[in-house]
């Protein structure tokens, strides 16, 4: 059965409302939160600053541009039953606590050591919520079977951490920072690439054997309309080539390799989000 548009026929229909702007918002939010989390772990101050800008300016702008009535955005704080509202609260708290922590480590304010430690931990936890909530927003409703799985929030987190590790590695090198634990970060990067490859395969296999609609979505990704960007962009460029570059970088730490590594990883990181949105398919309303 082919995919329908607005024809008056019973059949599969593609999700068309959440596209580029939502993918961009998810990408920036998750990458930004990932950078904060990794930078917090490694004590990379510049990373904390950049991550806050990515989340607060990048993600927020993309979301506001998407809204039909952006002037009423404050109303989105009112229904805590919705994952969008929960995510919004997480972003605000993340901004407040992450901002406070960053201002202290930059020396603009002075907090006691205990308070700073607690705020840092809370900000890191909130960055984790920012990474995962997009996955819950998508997986909550069973309308699109491809998204209706607990693997999706997991995928969001692992891709956020991967993007975060990549950008932190790149920024630390770019800014000439003497980041302690650089070798550990390189190893984390490679581990996350392997982990993401495993999760992508597990996700595709799980959904292929779940429902007919989810299988149709997976066919979209691996055989039909989006097979080139998915297999070529997400898997080959985003994971495999990035992994080769990351391994090569550990032995030959050339700046050019790091640039290529960051570019290939971010391409895959963005593509997975837009492709998951584009390959969302609704089940036919009638199966008899």
């Amino acid at each position: 059965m082919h995919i329908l548009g607005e024809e008056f026929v019973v059949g599969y229909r593609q999700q068309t409302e959440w596209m580029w702007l939502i993918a961009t918002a998810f990408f920036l939010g998750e990458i930004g939160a990932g950078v904060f989390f990794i930078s917090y772990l490694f004590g990379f101050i510049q990373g904390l600053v950049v991550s806050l800008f990515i989340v607060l300016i990048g993600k927020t702008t993309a979301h506001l541009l998407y809204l039909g009535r952006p002037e009423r955005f404050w109303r989105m704080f009112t229904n805590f039953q919705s994952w969008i509202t929960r995510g919004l609260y997480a972003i605000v708290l993340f901004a407040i606590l992450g901002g406070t922590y960053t201002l202290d480590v930059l020396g603009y304010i002075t907090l006691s050591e205990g308070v700073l430690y607690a705020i840092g931990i809370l900000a890191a936890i909130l960055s984790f919520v920012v990474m995962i909530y997009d996955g819950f927003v998508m997986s909550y409703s069973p309308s699109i079977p491809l998204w209706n799985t607990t693997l999706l929030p997991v995928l969001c987190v692992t891709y956020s951490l991967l993007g975060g590790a990549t950008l932190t590695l790149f920024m630390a090198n770019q800014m000439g920072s003497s980041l302690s634990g650089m070798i550990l970060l390189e190893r984390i990067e490679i581990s996350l690439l392997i982990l993401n490859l495993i999760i992508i395969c597990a996700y595709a296999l799980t959904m292929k054997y779940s429902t007919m609609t989810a299988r149709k979505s997976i066919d979209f990704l691996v055989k039909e309309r989006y097979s080139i960007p998915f297999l070529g962009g997400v898997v080959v460029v985003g994971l495999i080539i990035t992994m080769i570059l990351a391994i090569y970088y550990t032995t030959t730490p050339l700046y050019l390799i790091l640039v290529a590594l960051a570019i290939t990883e971010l391409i895959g990181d963005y593509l997975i989000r837009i492709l998951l949105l584009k390959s969302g398919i609704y089940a036919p309303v009638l199966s008899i």
Partner: protein
Amino acid sequence: MVRYGMVIDLKRCIGCQSCTIACKEEHGTPKGILYTKTLMKEEGKFPNIRRLFVPVLCNHCEEPLCKKVCPTGATEQRGDGIVTIDDNKCVGCRACYVGCPYKSRYYLPKDERLKKGYFGVLTPFEEIKYRDFKEGTVVKCTFCYHRVDQGLNPACVDICPTDARKFGDLEDPSSEISVLLSEREHIQLLPEAGTKPSVYYLL
């Protein structure tokens, strides 16, 4: 407590789209927005072919997913089960649109359709009806609550020439729709979504 529902007899529906037109006339929906429509399904191979017509609309679910995902509380459920959208609260995030398994919702984008209507210039009818629509918000079938509150049936029910659509109180065992549901084999659309739709289809 009243809980309104609709029963659609698939054996009676002839796919004439009268309900589609009556709904458009009742609500004056802009171009591209159909609160109800009749889908067609063909099955089998020649010469053994069966054609089925399936009228679809908002299912006014007992447990509406659209209400749960709405971050602003714009999607509300009345005491009689009718699911409505408060366009003064809607921010146009389209979470409800994406989250509805039946794709029964429409987004009214910021384009020319409310300014130019169907013919390039708004007709007097469109001028009046389009006052009810706000750009940048989501709209959907209301079960014609403005008619129901006056004791009338939804427009799609009254217009149906084959009497395929019935409207009434699902909680009242003596209502016509409750009797039909107790006597005839019936289904709901996508019951696996767990939304408990208030629209039933008689087989």
